[in-house]
């Protein structure tokens, strides 16, 4: 093994490395957003970039998301490849028109004649009492609206490959990174997200899910932080003699329904883990993807472990009560057996 293969990075550093490498070879890539310059991004994913590329290509913006995300659309259509950051996905409310009516629709409105090669990076997730305006995932909200690819890495290897792929994509890509996986000390980080990352640039195919743990009794399907909860639950289930397969979606749009169906066809059982609100979201979509295709593969009714349909409460005990966790996944298995 070469030295470069042994190197471990956090997701934040993997994102910054991918961005720097792409900026070196492609002068049309530039970054803008709030606090992405000297601060290096609130989550560290633009750290070191301003030192190398300067304030012309690493632009701190005013708190004007409508304007700078709209401006990214214009720049992208005019030959640039902007990477923009919406600091918390929860802030989409002030600028969603620029995202879903412009960024996501201009390729279609032009009959495919216009390209919108931009990346919208945004942080997701809770678990640290930051309250209901700073803790949401909103995977379903973004994935529901057509015209934007949506990715959500669970580890640094995928994060780097997805970032490079997103910057090279001619369509807009929403890059949703979970705060609890970023490797920031002040948030506390899931250790499993910090993994070996090659030094050379590489891409991961957008729209391809991964079976991150093989099993034969039940498929646990999730993304981002949920994958780590699923892996921990799989370990607990193994102690009970249950063999769980874990599928990491990696991309939400396009959704790799084939890999999900193949896994459920093998195991016959499905648990979906989603930190986003339960109703009208990702969990329902995954279940529909299986059942409307071939319901006969299922040996039991599918189960969901998702955030209940309430705003995210501040108090730690209330928030933890609502969040998915490994024990809830194990409980879902138990209920499935009892049914």
């Amino acid at each position: 093994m070469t030295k470069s293969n042994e190197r471990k990075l956090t997701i934040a550093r993997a994102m910054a490395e991918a961005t720097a490498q792409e900026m070196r070879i492609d002068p049309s890539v530039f970054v803008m957003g709030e606090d992405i310059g000297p601060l290096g991004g609130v989550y560290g994913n633009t750290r070191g970039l301003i030192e190398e590329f300067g304030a012309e290509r690493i632009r701190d913006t005013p708190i004007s998301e409508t304007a700078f995300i709209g401006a990214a659309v214009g720049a992208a259509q005019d030959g640039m490849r902007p990477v923009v950051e919406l600091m918390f996905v929860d802030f989409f409310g002030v600028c969603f028109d620029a995202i879903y009516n412009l960024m996501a629709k201009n390729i279609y409105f032009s009959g495919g004649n216009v390209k919108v090669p931009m990346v919208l990076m945004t942080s997701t997730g809770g678990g640290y009492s930051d309250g209901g305006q700073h803790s949401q995932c909103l995977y379903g909200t973004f994935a529901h609206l057509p015209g934007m690819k949506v990715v959500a890495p669970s580890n640094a290897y995928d994060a780097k490959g997805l970032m490079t792929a997103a910057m090279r994509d001619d369509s807009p890509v929403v890059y949703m990174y979970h705060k609890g996986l970023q490797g920031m000390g002040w948030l506390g980080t899931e250790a499993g997200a910090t993994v070996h990352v090659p030094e050379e640039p590489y891409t991961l195919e957008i729209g391809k899910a991964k079976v991150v743990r093989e099993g034969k009794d039940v498929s646990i399907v999730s993304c981002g932080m949920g994958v780590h909860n699923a892996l921990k639950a799989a370990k607990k289930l193994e102690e009970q003699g249950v063999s769980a397969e874990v599928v990491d979606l990696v991309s939400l749009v396009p959704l790799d329904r084939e890999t999900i169906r193949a896994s459920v066809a093998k195991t016959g059982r499905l648990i979906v883990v989603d930190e986003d609100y339960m109703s009208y979201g990702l969990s329902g979509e995954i279940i529909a993807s299986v059942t409307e295709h071939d319901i006969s593969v299922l040996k039991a009714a599918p189960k969901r472990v998702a955030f209940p349909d309430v705003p995210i409460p501040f108090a730690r005990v209330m928030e933890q009560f609502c969040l998915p966790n490994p024990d809830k996944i194990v409980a879902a298995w138990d209920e499935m057996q009892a049914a």
Partner: protein
Amino acid sequence: MSPTREEQHWMYRNMVTSRRFEEAIAKIYFEGKSPAFNMANGPIPGEMHLSDGQEPVAVGVCAHLTPEDVVTATHRPHHQAIAKGVDLDKMAAEIFGKKTGLSGGRGGHMHLFDDDVNFACSGIIAQGMGPAVGAALSRKMQGKPGVAVAFVGEGAVNQGGWHEAMNLAAVWNLPFICVVEDNGWGISVSKETASSIGSHADRAAAYGIPGKRIEGNDPYAIFEAAGEAIARARAGEGPSLLECETYRLAGHFMGDAEAYRPEGEKDALFEKDPIPKMRERLLADGAASDAELNTIEEESAARVDAAIRFARESDDAAPEDALTRVFAA
């Protein structure tokens, strides 16, 4: 319009209470934060934005308000909440995530709501503007007295929602005042980087309303300008825009190392701390005696101690209560 002796004492008391409250929070915040800075842990989890240094704006404005008047605050709300008369015990309990908190732990530090004194918050930049304008509209339509004040930071003035709300308030001639707390920084981005003009008060011209900038983080000057703006609004003469120079003595949030600040800027700020400055001035003007000020300080500290004790000793929120109060009963 200068503050009376009584008003001066009220202003000093609320400034000191706010500062003591934040000092207590700053101390407790790092208890049990492990690994270091993990904001999920400790008796006060979550992000924490302190308002040390910005107290003059809150007291200078709120000295003119009654509980019936409406205030919308920001992600940095404690000084504004205290000056508006939000229940300190319940506010502390809310920040600790306790059952006895303002919302029983549902909202937290950035989402303080106290219906008794018409106080509300939002953690989304500039999003207090619309609701304050709406409250002003409602007062006008119902013929009810009272004004609405939206406090925002100087960074918020670059949000689309800010401009839209200012325009509505102006075309509808509403009893509304926007108070911009200019502390020079939006997290790590300086005002000069983010805005093409030095004084946001000049933006009032775009809406045909009065605008005024107050320099020096001076509680008396803020009191005077706010008094005029609020009197205009009460008299049905429409909205105003005030921009107050102020200072953020703490980091943007607890744990912010502030590496983006020019070297030495912080030291100069501490020399301008408005609380010792006001104390000196009260004494020099003969507006208060040493003994009176000592009493105010002791009473403020005792009130804060009691609130923190109430918060610590209150029961945690019940986990399953998370599922309740989503809709009106």
